[in-house]
Every structure is written in C-alpha cells, then in structure tokens.
C-alpha cells in the first residue's frame, strides 16, 4: 500500500472542521486553562507559605546529625549536588537559603527575599558556637512568581488532556459508531489514518497553546528567559509523545467508558507527579524516578527551564530525546495493535 498525502489531508481536514465547529468543546479547551492560570495565580500570589532551604551535598539524603540547623521545624530541606542550579533557585526566590556544611561551611542568600531574612536568623541561631566561621554570600535576582511557574504547568496539562482525550477518546468513538469501519472499506491505510489524527491534533493544540500563552504573557507579563524556538520545539515533540500515548490507549478499546477509565488512569498520576501544580523537589527519589516515565514530566521540566532559567536547546536536549524515544515506542506499539473493527 502506498502512502498518499491526499488521503491524509482529507482526513486531517475533516477532523479539524469537526473539532473547530464543536463550539462547546472548543471553548472548554480555551477557557479552562485561562481560568486556571488567572484563578490560581491570584489565589497563590503570596508565594509559597513554607520555607525551603537547599543543602549542598553529594548525597541525596539529608542527615540531620550533621548540623543542628537541619533539625529546625517548619523548614523543608532539599539536597542539591549542583551549585549552579541551587544558586539559580536562590536568585529566583525558589529557595530561601542554600547552605553547605563541612570543612568550609558557607551559605548563600538573596538579600531581596523576605523569607531568606528569617531563615538566615534561624541558621545563625543554631550556629552559635561557630557563628563566625560560616561564610555568607549574597545572590541577587528577581523572584519567580507562581504565575510564571504555573503557566508551563497549565499549558502542559491542557496539552495532555487535549492529546489523550482528543485523540484517544475520538478514535474509540469512531470505532464504536462504525465510522472507522466505513473508512476501513476505503483505500485509506491505518498509517494514513493515524498520521492524519496526529497531525490534526498537533496543529490544533499548538494553536490553542499559542493563544493561551500569548494572552497570559501579555496580561500577566510572564517570564520568558529562553528562546521561543526551543519552547516551540518542546511543544511539538511533547504533543507528539502525548498523542502517541493516546493512540496506544485507543488502539483496540471499543468502549468509551473503558477508554475514559484508562485515560484517567494515565492522566491523574501524570498530572500529580509531573509537577503541574507543585514542584517535586524534595519528594523522595523513588517518586522522582517514577515521574520520569511520564512524557509530561519531561515537557514541563524542559519548558520551565527554558521559560524561567533561559535554558538553551542543548540544555533541554536530554528531555527532548526522552520524548522522541517515548513517541517512537508509543507509535510503534499503537500501529502494531491498532484495530479498525469493533471486535
């Protein structure tokens, strides 16, 4: 069977029209993310309400016996082995203080941060006998607002829902109501059908994401440190990986209820563990490792590092690679187990 672009385009076009004319779904796709960003960024505009201190050490587990400061209540201690990353967090007000114990104890704070002021007092209090030995260094930088941090999360989450449900659910519906069977009776190949679905959803979700990003960026003046090209690339590769995942789920399922259940089984852990709403720093290593199997984790990590920290294409290459590998695996599985018919 030869692949015909003409056939892919015919299915692509009809699917786009079907989506764009379904006003109710379309407005839901646009309104929900915007409402979430505005609602949440105003609700949580007061920033985090706990204190977070970075501990510079190679080990990921923090031993409280090392220093009495590490026993301080109401402070969340997170281990960092990369000083550059930790210092960037101080600059962005995402960490209140960074401390290193050992032979040459040292700490870093951002003088602009009010929380840093209190955490510093706590440190110096606990440091009484060695108060003069510990070295202090200041790092300057403007705070990252929750809105800045949340925007990539919401865009990613919207993309996840749109790709998984917009492809997975729709393919199952087509199969159940016999539309797939009708297409099967034409010269259209399964590859052409799948390609059209991927292309249609990708174009639509990129347009929607661009629309949401632009609106939010102009109204809330969100931070963009890196290049738009890199961000766009992350969005494209990320969307393909999520759509492919949706296709795997929908490759055989014939009931919308089952498809909905399976999709939620993927959606919810992904939404919770990929860092849409809160950062996983400080979460147990096992949780963070588990989260790295989700495409969304890689999408959000790389998008945030581009938007907030100005990461370059080279910096996010490992995440992009992970997403590409996932896409290939999902597409291969999806194409292999895909079925047109209902039984």
């Amino acid at each position, binding site marked *: 069977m030869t692949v015909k672009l003409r056939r892919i385009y015919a299915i692509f076009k009809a699917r786009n029209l079907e989506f764009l004319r379904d006003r109710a779904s379309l407005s839901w796709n646009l309104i929900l993310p915007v409402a979430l960003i505005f609602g949440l960024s105003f609700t949580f505009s007061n920033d985090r309400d706990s204190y977070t201190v970075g501990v510079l050490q190679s080990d990921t587990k923090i031993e409280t016996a090392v220093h009495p400061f590490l026993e301080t209540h109401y402070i969340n201690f997170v281990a960092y082995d990369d000083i550059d990353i930790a210092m960037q967090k101080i600059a962005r007000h995402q960490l209140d203080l960074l401390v290193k114990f050992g032979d040459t104890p040292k700490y870093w704070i951002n003088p602009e941060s009010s929380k840093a002021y209190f955490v510093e007092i706590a440190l110096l209090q606990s440091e009484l006998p060695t108060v003069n030995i510990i070295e202090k260094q200041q790092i300057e930088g403007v705070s990252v607002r929750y809105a800045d941090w949340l925007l990539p999360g919401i865009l990613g989450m919207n993309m996840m829902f749109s790709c998984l449900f917009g492809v997975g659910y729709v393919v199952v519906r087509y199969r159940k109501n016999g539309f797939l069977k009708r297409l099967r009776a034409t*010269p259209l190949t399964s590859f052409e059908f799948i390609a059209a679905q991927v292309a249609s959803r990708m174009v639509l979700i990129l347009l929607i994401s661009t629309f949401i990003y632009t609106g939010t960026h102009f109204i809330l003046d969100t931070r963009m440190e890196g290049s738009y090209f890199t961000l766009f690339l992350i969005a494209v590769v990320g969307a393909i990986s999520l759509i492919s995942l949706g296709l795997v789920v929908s490759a055989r399922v014939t009931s919308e209820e089952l498809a909905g259940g399976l999709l939620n089984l993927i959606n919810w852990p992904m939404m919770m563990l990929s860092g849409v709403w809160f950062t996983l720093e400080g979460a147990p290593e096992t949780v963070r490792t588990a989260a790295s199997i989700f495409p969304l984790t890689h999408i959000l990590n790389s998008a945030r590092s581009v938007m907030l920290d100005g990461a370059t294409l080279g910096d996010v290459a490992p995440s992009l690679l992970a997403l590409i590998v996932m896409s290939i695996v999902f597409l291969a599985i999806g194409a292999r187990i895909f079925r047109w018919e209902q039984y």
Partner: protein
Amino acid sequence: MNSCNCCVAPLALAGDDTIRYPYSMTIALEARNILKHYPGVRAVDGVSFSVPEGICFGLLGPNGAGKTTTVEIIEGVTPATSGEVLYYGEIAGSKFRQEAGIQFQNTALQDFITVRETIEMFRTLYDRQADFDELLERCSLRDLLDRDNRKLSGGQRQRLLLAVALVNRPRLIFLDEPTTGLDPQARRNFWDLLQDIRAGGSTILLTTHYMDEAEVLCDEIAIIDAGKIIAQDSPAALLQKQYDGLIIELPISDLTNNLSGIEHTVLDNLGIIEVVTTDVAESLKALTPHVSNLNQIKIRQPNLEDLFLDLTGHSLRA
C-alpha cells in the same frame, strides 16, 4: 440446482417478468467456502457463491442468519475464520478497495461535517472519482449540500450513504439492508436509484429481508439461514421449482370444519391457511363445503415470502 457457476449463462427471469440479458460470462466476485466461527457459534458455515458481472445479486435471510457477517467478510472489514474471496479472479486486495463501493447497515458519519464535505472527503480517498455533480443529481442531494450530517432525515441519510458508496464509480457495490427503516415512498425511490445504477453496468450485491425488494431488484438470490445457503437461483426459477400453481389463502376463522383430504398449510401467526393448486376452479369447489364465508378468499401468485417460509419454517422477519 445452483446456477451460480455460470459458465453457461442462463436467462434470468426478473420479478417483473421481463427477460433480462443473459448474465455476463465474467465473474466479478466469488466467495469460496467462507467460515466464521465465534466461540460457540458458527455465524457463517461454509458459504460459497459467485456473482457474474453486471447483475444484482441478493443475499436474503432473517435477522441473525449470517448475511451481514458474510458480506462484511467479503468486503474485507471482518476477518474470516477461513475461506477466500476473489475479485475478478484475484484475491481481493487493493484493487478491490479502489473499485468497490460499500454501504453498511449502520454507519455513523462525523458530526459537524456537511454533506458536501463528507462526499468530498470520501471522494478524495480514491484514485478513481465520480463526478461530483452527477453524484448529487443521482442521489438527489443538491439541496442538502450544506446541511450538517446530524440534521439529515432517515431517507436523506441513506441517500448520502449511498453517495458515499458511489464516490469511486464502483464496479461492484455492496448494499446491506439499504432500505431498512425507510418509509414506502423513500423505499420506492431507492429502488429506482438502484435500477439506474445497475443500468450503468455496475454489479450489485444486496442484502435484504424484504422479499418484495428482492423480487423487484435481484437477478439472482441466495437464501441464507443459520449461516448456510439453503437455496440459490433467480427469483422466478426458485418459485417455479417450489410451487406448481397458485396459492389460495383463506382465514382460519372462516372454516366450518377441518380440511380433511385437502392438502394445506396452516399459518397460525397470520391466522390463515394456504392451499397450493394448479386448478383453481377444482380446488375452490373442494373448499366451498368447509368454508362459511367465501368473501375473504384470496388467490395469488406465490412469492419469495412463501418460499422462505416453506424453506426455513420461519418468517423472514423473525
């Protein structure tokens, strides 16, 4: 018995008693020993037949007889347990996909898409494309072009599905119960349309459980029951083989005593008895003493409905 392996082309007598052209020597479609087993069920149990080019071939049977499964296996949308399908002598493949037009029994179309867009989309999927205007004219869809698929009536929808089946100027057309659910007027219009399509030289494979439809449209029929073909020929030949004469029909309630000595069939569910006869006058004379009221007696030609009842013992719409 079976005239399907048409090396010698028979003359087909159609239901309207006109003599049609002899069948083509070319076999458009051949099904060979098709089997479809589901756990515990033999849905299709060794069905074989061939369809000469240019005829309308009817596959008849009650609901659940295996008609749709058979046809969907031939169409390539349902995998068979075993058996093969030949299209112009070759295993049905990509040529078949390009040249066959299919109308399924139930097909959902995309929501929010208009009639025009639906036809255009399906048309683009084929290398050989029907003329758009001709298609509209033929299926009377011109006034509905910009209507959303969801807003079509039953008859309009059937016409659109037929148009979709014709977008590639098919050489072979499958129609699976195309008139089920249509009102009598819409059914008649659909028949005219099919006659017109056949006149264009296409081969048609039609499944139906309407006997009148098969009698009007089909050159040859195969009656399928419990997954097997139980009779196959032209409608007229089948009737001729089964019935020698006419049928006299009268209500059971009009009988004064039992009809001993007269061969008859009792159809309890219809409340009538039937007597097949070659000599109507003689039979009426014999019946008269047993009947209280002669006004309700009907004398008619046997039809496929009778044939089916006699062959399978149950009604086609059972």
